[in-house]
């Protein structure tokens, strides 16, 4: 038992020293993730507000003050001004001073009084699908606000012919209700917080995976396997040593990243430290396991680096970081659950921003992944040590 522990700890020490003594690797491992997270947190400003230019013809009688049309959506919509003609508004659009033009008709009231429906013209110029979607969503409330002003104008005209002490407020008639929304989540949705947790999960997975993947290949490249086959060390002792070393390394870096996120970037962490630690530990174990499996099914360092990069790409696209998983076909959604980062991102966002895991089964999925990959890595390593020509 003591000898087994000695052998396993020999591997722990060796792995730690091998990583820490390589300045470039250390920089990549420690400084790299911290810089990436810091750059993300400090430079990400989110989607800039859509700038709307209103066209209010002088003859329309509608208010020309831009503030009258404000939808009270700071950060989402900014009404940059009003123009009296569509042509001048189009110039502003072409010059990049506005993203959308909302043009009120010249003689809306007259046309309505003659029983004709009038059109509010909305124009924009974008090839960006995300911006297209946002503008499309904002076009309707903007048009509604112009509508509201037109209706208010008609009500005011009608009200002037009524002699009553209880004359209704034309604006109230034009907009008799308003929506009051309330987000029940315990923290205010912030892009930095939401995506920061996802980036953390991605970095941790990539770290663990890379360490695991390169370790076995390093042994193979050095010809160490020939010695390990003769030495009285078992596959279990060898893999235990590697796991412990990489959990220590990745855990330390993850701790620094969590501190950076919560202290410097203001990301709240509502769940108890124990729950977050359990999540990150499971993520690290699963990632190291995945790395070890990749290294054991490949035969060269270049192959394993390629696979690690593919795993990173798959995680970015299908882990829910770049695009929400709900936008993919169900089979791919199901397949994405087999990436540790997918489970960790969902759990992390819940634990950090809600304080509880709304889908606790994901803990089980992550634990199953960690256990399964460890067993597969152990079996493959045993085969590798038993492999003879």
């Amino acid at each position, binding site marked *: 038992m003591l000898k087994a522990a*000695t*052998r396993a700890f020999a591997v722990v020490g*060796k792995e730690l*020293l091998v990583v820490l*003594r390589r300045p470039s690797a250390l920089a990549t491992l420690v400084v790299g993730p911290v810089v990436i997270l810091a750059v993300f947190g400090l430079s990400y400003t989110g989607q800039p507000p859509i700038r709307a230019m209103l066209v209010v013809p002088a003859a329309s009688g509608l208010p020309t003050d831009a503030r009258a049309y404000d939808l009270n959506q700071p950060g989402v919509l900014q009404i940059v001004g009003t123009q009296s003609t569509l042509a001048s508004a189009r110039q502003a659009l072409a010059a990049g001073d506005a993203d959308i033009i909302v043009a009120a008709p010249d003689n809306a009231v007259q046309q309505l009084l003659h029983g004709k429906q009038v059109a509010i013209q909305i124009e924009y110029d974008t090839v960006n699908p995300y911006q297209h979607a946002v503008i499309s969503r904002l076009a309707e409330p903007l048009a509604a606000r112009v509508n509201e002003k037109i209706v208010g104008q008609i009500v005011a005209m009608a009200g002037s012919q009524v002699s009553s002490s209880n004359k209704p407020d034309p604006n109230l008639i034009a907009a008799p209700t308003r929506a009051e929304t309330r987000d029940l989540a315990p923290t205010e949705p912030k892009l930095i917080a939401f995506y920061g947790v996802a980036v953390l999960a991605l970095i941790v997975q990539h770290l663990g995976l890379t360490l695991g993947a390169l370790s076995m290949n390093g042994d193979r490249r*050095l010809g160490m396997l020939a010695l390990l*086959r*003769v030495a009285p060390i*078992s596959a279990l002792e060898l893999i235990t040593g590697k796991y412990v070393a990489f959990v220590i390394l990745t855990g330390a870096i993850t701790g620094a990243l969590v501190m950076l996120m919560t202290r410097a970037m203001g990301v709240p962490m509502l769940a108890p430290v124990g729950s977050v630690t359990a999540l990150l530990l499971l993520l690290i174990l699963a990632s190291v396991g995945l790395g070890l499996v990749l290294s054991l099914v490949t035969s060269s360092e270049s192959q394993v680096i390629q696979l690690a990069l593919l795993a990173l790409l798959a995680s970015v696209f299908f882990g829910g970081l770049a695009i929400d998983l709900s936008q993919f076909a169900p089979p791919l959604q199901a397949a994405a659950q087999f990436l540790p980062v997918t489970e960790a991102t969902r759990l992390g966002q819940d634990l950090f921003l809600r304080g509880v895991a709304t889908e606790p089964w994901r803990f089980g999925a992550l634990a199953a992944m960690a256990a399964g990959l460890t067993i597969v890595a152990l079996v493959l390593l045993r085969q590798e040590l038993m492999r003879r020509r």
Partner: protein
Amino acid sequence: MERVRKDFNGVRALEDVTFAVPRGALVGVIGPSGAGKTTAISLFTGNLVPTRGVVRTLGEEPLRLRRRTRERIGLMPQRFTLYPELTTSENVDFFASLFGLLAWRRRRRTREALQLVELWGVRNRMTAKLSGGMQRRLQLACALVHEPELLILDEPTAGLDPLLRQGVWRELIQQRERGRTVVVTTQYVVDAEHCDLVALIADGRLLAFGPPRDLRRMALGGEVVQVEVDGAWHGDELEALAGVRHLHRIPPGRFWVVVDNAGEVTPAVVETVRRVGVEVVSVREYRPSFDEIFAALVHRDREGQEVGGAAAPAAFLLRP
């Protein structure tokens, strides 16, 4: 190993090789590069399995060596297999730990092993910064640190200068004197001199196996007394002497007398030459180098002659 054959993808690396390593002996597996030496010792460690034949290491099948048995083996591979990011002593300590040495003994043995190979002074130096010779010695220290009964060393002197090679052989002889069994491969045929037993391998075939003195006899068909005379003489009287197996004439006036025992026959040879009245220029035992012996044995093998038989020594050994 007994009647071992090893093929790699249809290419034969070893053919019908049989030899046994006695406990406590220093056995050299010697041959040129690509002869099959590494293949042979990799069969002992279990890193390779024979295509045919039987291999036993410390009485067990190498593929299924028990953990306790593996603790009794020290291996030094041909290529450098240490961690360049670790210091000299950290590498030795790592190997000591792999073999289960506990802390106190590990510290002592690391120091002893490094002192033995004269690397204690550079114990804190990064392995990557050691010279090639130092790295070979460090590899040797790693193989020795757990005091194995059986040391298997693949080309420990490869790439070393003559002085360092001498140092490594001194070390191996010391190990043998401490009761360890040492199996060592080398492409330097002259190193056979240091071994108790030598397995000469070429083209995957075992040309000869035995003590170095016996190899000389195998190559020459016996021991050789070289005679040089001044004057015309055919040398027929020498052929008739007891203990003489062959006589080779190398005109003018030179003879190779192949005998069972040079020490016993030489006085009779001198006496015979004087008796016939020819002036003796020199009479001495001929001791060819191991390079020459190896070349002769390879020559014989390629010509299909039985090594160690009564055939004549290879012609090129009879040059003037």
